[in-house]
């Protein structure tokens, strides 16, 4: 604890590793700033944070210092309100206004603009500059980020975020003196998957949300609530904002443990499915004459009849809330509830969660990932399977060189100095994947191999770390040496990390990754084990007992069930169309979902289900963190949360649920793993200083006018039975518990920078802890036994390829593809092949081919992937309009049209027998198998 005197008052604060600006902000003092950012800290460019610092009690003159650059020393004397400091800070704003266009009334940033706030804070009112301003040409940066360069105040934050923090290459500073600009070297789509963060990183209206521009509304007119991103398994925290019944934008909601200040572009821009023209808004009944809209009451009656007269099973969904899945399970009965994913996926996710629960390696939050210092990535292209994990890993590789640089006496907040001292040094990170990844450029070593060989490598690394871990039979000397090298690199870490997950679709890879982490733990390291999971609630739903979709198919085909309720699920994305046809062949099919997809179009009854922004619920992310997401706005028409539909279908006599809290209580009761779930956020009867928490800002406008075209009477705000929030501007403005913060705002701080006021330390946890609760902690006691099922080495097959799923940040997620900007960036259908395989199969780059896997096939074009192991192919997962393939699996590739070369003719000619083909990773150890890893390649050291 350090004592310091600011403006005559004495404070004590923990100042270790923190500069004067950070300490002042955390003490609740207002010091204006621009170039400092809590995540990438100080460079001293803007000179806005000047304060007076006095040598001692006798010093009355003092000297101006930039608060963001200097440490706090015990007994330090500081004056923020010193007249010279005040005048200088106002002058800095005046300088920034020399070229600023003063176009607040038409600026998208207006109302949550840090420049506006700081201008007011410094008291600058009159700009004496009387000459012309410079003007810049703006660039078109693609669908996500809008540019208006004239508003730039040259704080350099954007370029520091984009290049230094997020590793982007296509963005830089251009020009010199008072003519510097920030952007790409030419117009074009920003390449970084984190580009949207420029919107908040930029303290002015230069970079703004282009998707919001298409349906703009003033920021203070947005209705918001704390929510969770539904677009991948990481569960980043968000603030969706609504006006007039449409969702206008999504902003990051600070969670120190999860996403920090950022979101990926899928998460930020994926929201437009909520406003889609394909939304299901009213119940639909479908009979032989076609679909007809029915009333809510009719729909409930129809569904009630089905439930009474039919043998009904329920199919859940990993993208629906725990509450929705649980309500379905309660409605149809636990033994008639099936997970809405294939056996393959369910087994994989359950393996992942079991490995995390069983072993002593801790599942890290993203914040903890950032602090790891020796990393093995096994089989995972994180950019595309868990985007924000890439951003965290980018910080993690800096841990080692940063620790060295700090030994030179550099203050840890001096970002530029640290980066100069570190140069391009990076800590050890081994990227072992089937194909290239965006993190390769940071890797100390890259390895390319088929999943089975990746698993073998992982098992070998574990054995190299701990001889009691199972050895891998018939390894080549090269692989052995590689494994030992990786083991040695991991051992150098104080906090080693192993990353794996669903990317390869291989349990063996995950088990190998777990063995590595456990071997590290057993040999004295505090290792973490981070797994990605496919969807926002994959982890949560996998914890619910129940069988997979395959079992549901059997129920229908053998007649033990003749009706089904499908929860938020397009089955055609999940399984081969044959199985889906069997399912949908049931006598009655009830679908609850947001969008009119193919499954919905086959339903006999469709119920409009709330999206994440329209209903409240709980989701469990890859870390095992349960997080509550709250309803942002009341959806139009008959849309309501799936769990509410399902609760309303329960017989009147037994219907016990009025609101979310009742569902949560039942859930906690029924499933021991979810005992703590009700406590992760306050219940609906929570009150803050006796009032609800308002979803609308205190400046929300048009409250009486918004519906005046319908009635001049102001409608009563809707009642929320599920959460302690009001759909109103009335309520308490006190700081709520962190899980209930509806927006970050503080007097004088109207931009996101207000978050400083919600933390004890800038960049640290929210005041009463970061939201969410971890449900998975490493067990105490005896270490878990190692996994021992080591696969045989991968052997390429003649005429066939092992087809792996290629995940795409823009393309593999169902919902986000409804945003035009994201759809525009999705890949077309392709199959990627090694040049050797191209030759082997007689194919050429760009050629149209049919890829057949099991009974399914798709037409796609060939692309060349020089790093992909021979015998392995990749094709995008999750693209719309393409038949789902149960990957990974062996597949055939044949040219489309007559003139296919002999090899591929053969491949296409042999009818593949589903189930006969063994997946590489489930193959048993075969003594005859050629040893070694044909596809493996050591990358640059």
């Amino acid at each position: 604890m350090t004592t310091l005197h600011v403006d005559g008052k004495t404070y004590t604060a923990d100042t270790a590793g923190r500069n004067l600006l950070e300490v002042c902000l955390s003490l609740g003092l207002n010091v204006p700033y621009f170039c400092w950012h809590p995540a990438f800290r100080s460079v001293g460019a803007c000179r806005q944070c000047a304060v007076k610092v006095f040598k001692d009690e006798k010093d009355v003159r003092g000297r101006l210092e930039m608060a963001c650059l200097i440490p706090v020393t015990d007994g330090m004397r500081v004056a923020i309100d010193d007249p010279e400091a005040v005048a200088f800070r106002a002058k800095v704003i005046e300088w920034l206004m020399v070229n600023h266009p003063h176009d607040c009334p038409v600026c998208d940033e207006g109302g949550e603009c840090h420049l506006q706030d700081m201008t007011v804070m410094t008291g600058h009112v009159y700009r004496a500059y009387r000459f012309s301003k410079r003007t810049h040409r703006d660039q078109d940066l693609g669908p996500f980020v809008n540019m208006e360069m004239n508003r730039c105040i040259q704080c350099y934050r954007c370029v520091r975020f984009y290049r230094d923090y997020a590793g982007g290459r296509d963005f830089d500073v251009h020009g010199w003196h008072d003519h510097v600009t920030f952007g790409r070297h030419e117009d074009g789509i920003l390449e970084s998957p984190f580009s949207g963060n420029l919107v908040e990183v930029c303290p002015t209206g230069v970079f703004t949300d282009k998707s919001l521009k298409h349906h703009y509304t003033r920021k203070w007119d947005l209705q918001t609530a704390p929510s969770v991103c539904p677009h991948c398994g990481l569960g980043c925290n968000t603030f969706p904002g609504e006006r007039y019944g449409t969702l206008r934008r999504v902003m990051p909601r600070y969670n120190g443990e999860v996403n920090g200040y950022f979101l990926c572009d899928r998460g930020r821009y994926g929201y437009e499915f909520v406003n889609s023209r394909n939304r299901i808004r009213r119940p639909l009944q479908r009979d032989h004459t076609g679909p007809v809209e029915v009333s809510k009451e009719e729909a409930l009656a129809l569904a009630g009849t089905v439930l009474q007269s039919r043998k009904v099973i329920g199919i859940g969904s990993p993208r629906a809330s725990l509450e929705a899945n649980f309500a379905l399970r309660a409605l149809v009965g636990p033994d008639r509830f099936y997970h809405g994913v294939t056996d393959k996926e369910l087994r994989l996710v359950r393996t992942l969660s079991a490995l995390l629960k069983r072993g002593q390696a801790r599942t890290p939050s993203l914040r903890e990932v950032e602090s790891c210092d020796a990393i093995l990535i096994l089989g995972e292209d994180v950019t595309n399977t868990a985007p924000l994990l890439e951003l965290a890993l980018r910080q993690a590789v800096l841990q080692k060189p940063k620790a060295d640089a700090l030994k030179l006496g550099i203050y840890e907040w001096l970002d530029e100095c640290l980066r100069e001292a570190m140069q391009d040094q990076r800590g050890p990170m081994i990227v072992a994947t089937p194909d290239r990844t965006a993190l390769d450029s940071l890797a100390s070593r890259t390895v390319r191999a088929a999943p089975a060989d990746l698993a073998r490598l992982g098992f070998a690394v574990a054995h190299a770390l701990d001889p009691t871990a199972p050895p891998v039979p018939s390894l080549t000397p090269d692989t052995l040496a590689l494994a030992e090298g990786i083991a040695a690199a991991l051992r150098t870490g104080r906090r080693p990390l192993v990353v794996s997950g669903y990317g390869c679709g291989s349990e063996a890879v995950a088990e190998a990754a777990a063995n590595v982490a456990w071997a590290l733990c057993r040999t004295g390291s505090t290792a973490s084990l981070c797994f990605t999971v496919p969807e926002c609630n994959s982890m949560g739903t996998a914890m619910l007992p129940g069988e997979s979709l395959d079992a549901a198919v059997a129920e229908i085909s053998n007649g033990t069930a003749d009706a089904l309720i499908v929860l938020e699920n397009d089955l055609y994305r999940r399984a081969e169309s044959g199985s889906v046809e069997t399912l949908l062949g049931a006598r009655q099919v009830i679908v609850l979902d947001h969008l009119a997809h193919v499954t919905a179009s086959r339903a006999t009854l469709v119920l409009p289900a709330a999206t994440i922004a329209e209903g409240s619920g709980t989701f469990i992310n890859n870390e095992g963190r349960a997080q509550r997401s709250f309803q942002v706005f009341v959806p139009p028409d008959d849309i309501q949360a799936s769990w509410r539909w399902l609760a309303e279908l329960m017989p009147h006599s037994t219907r016990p649920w009025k609101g979310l809290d009742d569902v949560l209580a039942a859930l906690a009761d029924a499933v021991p793993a979810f005992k703590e779930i009700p406590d992760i956020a306050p219940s609906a009867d929570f009150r803050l200083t006796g009032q609800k928490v308002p979803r609308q800002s205190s400046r929300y406008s048009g409250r009486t006018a918004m519906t005046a075209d319908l009635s001049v009477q102001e409608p009563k705000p809707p009642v929320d039975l599920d959460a302690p929030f009001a759909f109103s501007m009335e309520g308490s403005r006190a700081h709520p518990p962190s899980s209930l913060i509806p927006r970050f705002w503080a007097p004088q701080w109207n931009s996101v920078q207000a978050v400083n006021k919600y933390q004890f330390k800038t960049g640290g946890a929210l005041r009463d802890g970061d939201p969410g609760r971890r449900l998975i902690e490493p067990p105490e006691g005896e270490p878990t036994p190692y996994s021992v099922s080591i696969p045989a080495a991968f052997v390429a097959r003649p005429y066939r390829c092992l087809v792996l799923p290629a995940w795409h940040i823009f393309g593999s997620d169902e919902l986000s593809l409804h945003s035009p900007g994201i759809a525009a960036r999705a890949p077309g259908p392709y199959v990627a092949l090694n040049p050797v395989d191209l030759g082997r199969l007689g194919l050429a780059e760009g050629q149209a081919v049919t890829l057949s896997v099991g009974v399914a096939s798709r037409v796609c074009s060939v692309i060349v992937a020089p790093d992909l192991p021979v015998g392995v192919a990749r094709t995008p997962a999750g693209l719309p309009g393409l038949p789902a393939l149960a990957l990974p699996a062996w597949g055939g590739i044949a040219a489309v049209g007559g003139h296919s070369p002999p090899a591929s003719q053969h491949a296409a000619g042999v009818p593949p027998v589903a189930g006969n083909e063994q997946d590489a990773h489930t193959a048993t150890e075969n003594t005859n198998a050629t040893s070694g890893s044909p596809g493996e390649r050591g990358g640059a050291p």
Partner: protein
Amino acid sequence: MPLIERPLTQNIRPGQEPPDLRAYERAGGYEGLRKALTLDPKTVQDWVTRANVMGRGGAGFPAGHKWASVPMGPEAARPKYVVVNADEMEPGTMKDRLLMEGDPHQVIEGALVCAYAIQADVVYIFLRNEYKLSEQRLCKAIAEAYASNYAGPKVLGSPWSVELRLHTSAGRYMCGEKSGILNALEGKRAIPRAKPPRTAVSGLWGKPTVVNNVETLANVHHIIRHGWEWFRSLSHTEEGGTKLYGVSGPVNRPGVWEMPMGTTVREILEGCAGGMRPGHTFRGLLPGGASTPFLTEEHLDTRMDFASMHQIGSQLGTGTMIVMDDKTCPVGLLYGLETFFARESCGWCTPCREGLPWVARTLEAIEAGHGKPEDMEVLDSHVKFLSGHNTFCELAPGAMMPLKSALKAFRADFERHISEKRCPWRTG
């Protein structure tokens, strides 16, 4: 051996080719390096410290102290670097050019002695873009030095190896700033760096680095060869050695001369440069390039060394003065200078990037007769705020030196422009 009084210029014959390696060696060249190699690196540092060589790039930091803060010994980070600051873009300054064009081996030998003293692995000479002749001559001299193993592996049979590289700048004033030069060498924007760390600990590519001016380094092998006592004896003051002084402006003989450190302004102006040209009356001078404060008549008997100039509230800077006469409009002169500084601002920090163009445009307006009384307040406030620690580097405070002193010494001229709505120096 007779001791030399003008060590830096002894071999320089203006208008002639510089001495080649043989000629340089005949004149005693590379003796300093040979001797240094027989000494312990720390001893070399120590002699340079005792010689009290103040940095000749403008800031006057003692070279020996700078070298002594470089980590030494087997634990020290490698490679270590010496950067010879040959960017010389300070207006009115052309002293380094004289050394590089006139006796390139001397610059190289000095740099090599420095490199030996800190056990550096690489020497970069960072040369101003426009100095084409210096470039040719340095290239030739570097090749000769390599050929005779003054540079390269195992220098003159010693265990120490060093590489010598010439880098020509893309051309910016900020490339000469002590940390901007490092970014420029690394291929980055020439913006300055913050401290800590000191460059001596983490400089070029994050490794220990010494940055010294050409003239500073040109002295050091003489110190090793003739001893630090000799070097101190060359000076009139505590600050050792001779100094290259220059005069430009309406004087009889503009030029650069090597004189004892601490020669008075008058001796240089009237003695070396032969006084004002007939018909021109002295009004003031900038003593050491454009970023130093004006001196006027009453200062002419001040000694030109760092301490004495500091005492009268001015600065020695590069020691190359720009003389202003009565035929020159001070507002016009300042407008030119500030336009230069505004253009050369790197754009990193707000006060300099936005303030200097504002100052320049204000001066432009005043000079053109469009000045307003409030403009004086604009100028005064910039002088006040663009000082001290308020900007990130010294460019902007340097830019305010001539303005601040001019607003004091020639304020009436500014006010006349505004009240008469024209430049009194303009005819017609």
